[in-house]
């Protein structure tokens, strides 16, 4: 993936949290703009919609909402740009996108519904693993 690395320039550090926040929004916009292309090149029309992918991107960003250090935000942004670049340049394959952004981290079995309401932590952990 040398061609992506050549094109990626490390921007100067954000001076303040405010600036970093702006950059995150810029990144989110860039990601949203590239989504139609992504749908096209990975042929995702039958498994996802643009709005689903958009909320996946938003939730990936919100996962790091607790980070307040501008340097760390810059680092995360850099990784996100790299990932976006890889996706947009078709450096991935269809199942990568489906596995990571359509199906999600929980895997195919997603029966977390009303069933798990009101059970103890022990039982939740028991269903997951022996340890």
């Amino acid at each position, binding site marked *: 993936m040398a061609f992506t690395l050549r094109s990626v320039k490390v921007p100067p550090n954000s001076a303040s949290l405010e600036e970093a926040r702006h950059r995150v929004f810029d990144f989110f916009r860039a990601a949203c703009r590239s989504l139609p292309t992504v749908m096209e090149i990975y042929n995702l029309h039958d498994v996802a919609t643009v709005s689903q992918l958009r909320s996946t991107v938003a939730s990936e960003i919100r996962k790091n909402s607790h980070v307040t250090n501008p340097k760390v935000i810059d680092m995360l942004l850099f990784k996100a740009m790299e990932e976006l670049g890889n996706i947009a340049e078709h450096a991935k394959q269809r199942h990568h996108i489906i596995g990571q952004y359509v199906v999600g981290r929980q895997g195919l079995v997603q*029966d977390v519904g009303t*069933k798990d309401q009101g*059970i*103890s*932590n*022990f*039982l939740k952990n*028991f*269903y997951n693993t*022996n340890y």
Partner: protein
Amino acid sequence: MGLGMLASRVMRPTASKLPRNLLSHFHIRPIVSTPESSAAQAQPEPEPTPPPRAPVAGARVHFKNPDDAIEVFVDGYPVKIPKGMTVLQACEVAGVDIPRFCYHSRLSIAGNCRMCLVEVEKSPKPVASCAMPALPGMKIKTDTPVAKKAREGVMEFLLMNHPLDCPICDQGGECDLQDQSMAFGSDRGRFTEMKRSVVDKNLGPLVKTVMTRCIQCTRCVRFATEVAGVQDLGMLGRGSGEEIGTYVEKLMTSELSGNVIDICPVGALTSKPFAFKARNWELKGTETIDVTDAVGSNIRIDSRGPEVLRILPRLNEDINEEWISDKTRFFYDGLKRQRLNDPMIRGADGRFKAVSWRDALAVVAEVAHQTKPEEIVGIAGQLSDAESMMALKDFLNKMGSNNVWCEGNGVNTDADLRSGYLMNSGIAGLEKADVFLLVGTQPRVEAAMVNARIQKTVRATQAKVGYIGPAADFNYDHQHLGIGPQTLIEIAEGRHPFCSALLNAKNPAIIVGAGLFERKDKDAIFSAVETISKYAKVVRPDWNGFNVLLLNAAQAAALDLGLVPESGKSIESAKFVYLMGADDVNMEKVPVDAFVVYQGHHGDRGVYRANVILPAAAFSEKEGTYENTEGCVQQTLPAVPTVGDARDDWKIIRALSEVAGVRLPYDSLGAIRSRIKTVAPNLVHMDEREPATFSASLKPDFSHKMSLTAFGSTIENFYMTDSITRASKIMAQCSALLLKK
């Protein structure tokens, strides 16, 4: 080391200004010190005499009589030892480890390897320290040129005919010859001729022989004769034609034969199932205990990744000394076969379908709730740990049923007095006995390590052994008194010739087999045994010779926890049967319309009848408490991860209780152990033997008619007694080849 090294680094720049000797001092002992104390250290100290070394492997000296102490000098240090110790033992007490091949502390002395040569002052030649008794004032030198030269010479002779095949030898890495030739051998040999070769012997499916590697230390011969009690192995030929063998083509049929693998100092006898599987330095050792019988032998499970590769004994003087039975050593391949790895429900077509834990537990809870409380039955298997049995009992009690027991314990076993179901003398205590009366028990197949103790006692003190039961195989002298209760009644009434032996004995021991628990007239048999023990003075304040030899690892803990069924007939009327690893229950008694849940780790007999399977962890994968037949509580530790989607036994019951709406109040092992503490406090004192407090004399008198049917033999096949051993291929080979037909 962290702090000290840091301190020495901090000091280094200034160290160049310090005097020379101080500099070296700092390098040897980097300690953080205040300026005052370092100034004190700067004073040149007189060279102190190094303190005497600690004894090898914590060897302890026990003086029976203070007058027997003699003093010898080992490398200039005086040591006090009791009379009769050998020079080698004196050196061990002094902290000097003498190299040896033939000497083994639990076997007789052969003195034929000559590796333990040391110099003794005023003796013209170096002496073999293992065979030489230490005499008062003896000056032993272990580090002189003469001793070193002698060892080098012996090594050269031993290596003369030993093949240089360490890279393909299974002993490599844990080989005494390899280690000692590195430490004491010469860097070259003068031998140029051909090495001798010896034909390999076939000793059966367990012990692999490469007889060319043998150095004729005769440890295996002595082990077979003295500990295993079989005269299978011997020495053939003379001089360079000497070899170990069975003389005629014959397999080694002892139940302890695997131990020759451990005592062989070279790679001549190695484990056949473990051959070429792994190197010992790749393995992770987990110190745990064995569950295949009620002895609870201490073992080490050697594993690599998720696989158990071998099982070795661990030293425990009170239980298994340093031996284990072949079943314990070689059943581990059963842990890989026939495993249950997913919860399963039997469909309408009679086939099992894998489901999620959620669905399986929901189905079980649903059915349990539709059943009347008195029709719910729970049976713990012979490999269950105390924690899961506690959880099972609590769960069933919360469901309103008290029909819970452990298989092998019979229906109305008396769990009130611990002395009524434990080995009260203790396994090590059996060595004090001088007359044994075995009632309906064949210790050789029921508990090989207990049998080894009896054999040791018989060999050492010529103790008499009387046996009542079907014809059985013994490896020591015994009198077969009879086959059934008739003989027992004769002894109880004092009409039998063996009574005089019992009466004249100082420490008589009666061992009753737990197989009798299953008999209907067990109370009558036990009261007869108590009559005998009363008139033969078997139970005294200083000696308790009334013993019950249990069969399974779970039995003692189950009785301690009070897993006793409410009614004897409960299984015939059951509608919901919860089998927690119970495979030896007579499934024909269970009604056809009963719902059977099998929780366990192996697809064994219980599974054939089960409606739902809940996969559980085997003993090698969980932490669990087990009590052995003498009341010693020990625990297993997880050596390998669980298989598939299996869960620990107690966790399954805890989860099921929550799904069923009767949630048990413990979430962790610690919590369940504190629950156990309120029921049976002895079960939380790990590695401690808790003897029974009250003896059986408190029991009310009981007169019942004894049926005269002869005692049966409890274990048909020594090698296959539980679900793991039945799944093991090695055990199947053993039972095909080694069982006497």
